[in-house]
């Protein structure tokens, strides 16, 4: 990222807008994407700072307070063991957002590395890597996710560790698309003059790839990653809802909705399952709005 910024500043004595500043200016003009950004920021504050402001805690259970509807004491009511739903919602948000962020980080890491190597070296390396990517592209995601999750249950993975496994699995299954995008762009960038200059300077391959080629692909990666967080959160929530992702006692937005498996809860206690669903929806929606805005702002072809 910084490499691009510096290059612009060094080469120009006049004030030329750096690409990042230009992106920021365009993004600020896009109202919908700013709405998305604000919601997203709100969700992060809600999930990561909110729990510190809550008077309740997760450890004490109190059967006397069980299944209370929303009140001034419990803003979103309580669950079957008397825990505050609002606090669980915040803590669940931490997990859901973290799973989204980390799994995308994994997928971006693998996707960029594979795409970079594939595009730069070409030949048999490209062939092998892209065939592997083809295989991962054709993986039927949901069935495979479900099996992996069941295998985890059989291996008796602890709930705390399961979260990491879920992040890892989601990341492993979603890098292929990005690797193709990166490879495609690197193929064209490789032929440009600045790469001949890099060649003439006798730079190492790793330096050429990671300092000169990849920074030029960063916009694609950012857009892909942003939108990827949304789909990651959706998948995690579906898995956790099926009881196959993040499992209790650790709350996640998906597994909180599991309370509908009790029909009485489903029918009469909407405060147990509607708030987490709304949170998933709002977060993913915000990410999509922001991601779309980012794409428009980063793509110079779409000048309005």
């Amino acid at each position, binding site marked *: 990222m910084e490499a691009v910024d510096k290059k612009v500043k060094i080469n120009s004595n006049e004030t030329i807008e750096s690409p990042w500043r230009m992106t920021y200016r365009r993004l600020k003009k896009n109202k*919908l994407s700013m709405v998305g950004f604000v919601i997203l920021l709100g969700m992060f504050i809600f999930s990561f700072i909110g729990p510190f402001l809550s008077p309740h805690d997760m450890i004490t259970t109190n059967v006397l307070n069980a299944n209370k509807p929303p009140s001034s004491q419990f803003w979103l009511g309580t669950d079957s063991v008397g825990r505050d739903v609002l606090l669980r919602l915040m803590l669940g948000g931490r997990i859901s957002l973290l799973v989204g962020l980390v799994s995308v980080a994994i997928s971006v890491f693998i996707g960029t590395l594979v795409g970079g190597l594939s595009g730069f070296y070409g030949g048999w390396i490209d062939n092998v890597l892209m*065939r*592997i990517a*083809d*295989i991962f592209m*054709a*993986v*039927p995601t*949901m*069935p*495979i996710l*479900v*099996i*992996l999750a*069941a*295998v985890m249950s*059989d*291996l008796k993975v602890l709930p705390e560790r399961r979260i990491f496994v879920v992040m890892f699995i989601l990341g492993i299954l979603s890098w292929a698309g990005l690797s193709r995008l990166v490879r495609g762009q690197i193929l064209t960038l490789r032929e440009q003059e600045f790469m001949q200059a890099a060649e003439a300077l006798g730079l190492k391959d790793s330096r050429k790839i990671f300092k000169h080629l990849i920074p030029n692909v960063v916009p694609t990666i950012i857009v892909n990653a942003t939108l990827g967080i*949304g789909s990651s959160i*959706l998948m995690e*929530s*579906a898995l956790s*809802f*099926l009881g196959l992702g993040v499992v209790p006692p650790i709350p996640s937005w998906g597994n909180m*909705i599991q309370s*509908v498996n009790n029909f009485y809860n*489903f*029918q009469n206690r*909407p405060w147990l*399952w*509607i708030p987490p*669903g709304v949170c*998933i*929806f709002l977060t*993913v*929606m915000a*990410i*999509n*709005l922001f991601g*779309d805005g980012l794409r428009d702002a980063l793509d110079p072809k779409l000048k309005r």
Partner: protein
Amino acid sequence: MRQYITRRVLQMIPILLGLSIIIFGLFALAPGDFIDANLSKNLSAEKVAELKALYGFDQPLHIRYFRWAGDALRGNLGDSLQFSKPVTSVINDYVWNSFILSAFSYLLSIILAVPIGIISATKQYSKFDMGATVVALIGISMPAFFLGLLMIKIFAIDLHILPVSGMRTAGLNATGFAAMADVGKHLILPTLVLAFSGVGSLMRYTRTSMLEVIKQDYIRTARAKGLSEKTVIYRHALRNALIPIVTILGLMLPGLFGGAMITEQIFAFPGIGKIALGALSKRDYPLMMGFNMFMAVLVLLGNLLSDILYAAVDPRVRLK
């Protein structure tokens, strides 16, 4: 064209091989099997060992893989342990329920998405465009299972106008039209849920594709010739804009037969997706593996179909 298709089919072979290894490997990772999960409590240790030998669970991994893959190539996916009949016939029993559900929802989403996408693109940044874009985004961002639950709560539980779940009313001995109406009623909610999540991405896809075409030079030429806006859009632009959309139809194939696991689960709809989820909790591995291979083949066939369709409607592709 024939050469192109042959090449694409040959490319599928290593992918299929890789997928089968991944799928088999996953099941090999799992420590329990059907006998441990369901029967071992009531059986003596020798009986368990005997049963495991009978199903080949005691063999080393690579032998089990080659045996399974060899059988699969001949169209034999083994026997489902839970249904006590061939996996292929279990799939055949339930896949058509899924097909009906998916077919209706796809039809609905295509009917809605394509025209709205086109109008949205021709009136870019208008109120209609903004509204459609927001609705599409809502569809994409809404978790299908949550939408399903909300619909059941509103229409089935609170308003009592539609059935909660299943595909037929239990104990209803209707035939002919009445039976069809009963199935139809059960289909409404799951169809809507599936269509709502599908319509968003298809609409955005149509819109983007149309926008790209409208910006091209030949469209300006057509306008300069003095053609009416209608002719320009619907005769000149639409044809090229539909090319990428046609390929989506190919990519939809796996969903059409593969069922929608989560939606079927929510609505207790007896489709292949729900059966596959059920097979998992019973550790019915042959059925799960068979279903996964079936899905993998469908995905590959879908990709193939979409590439062929693309090459058929756009001759430029074949030359690459």
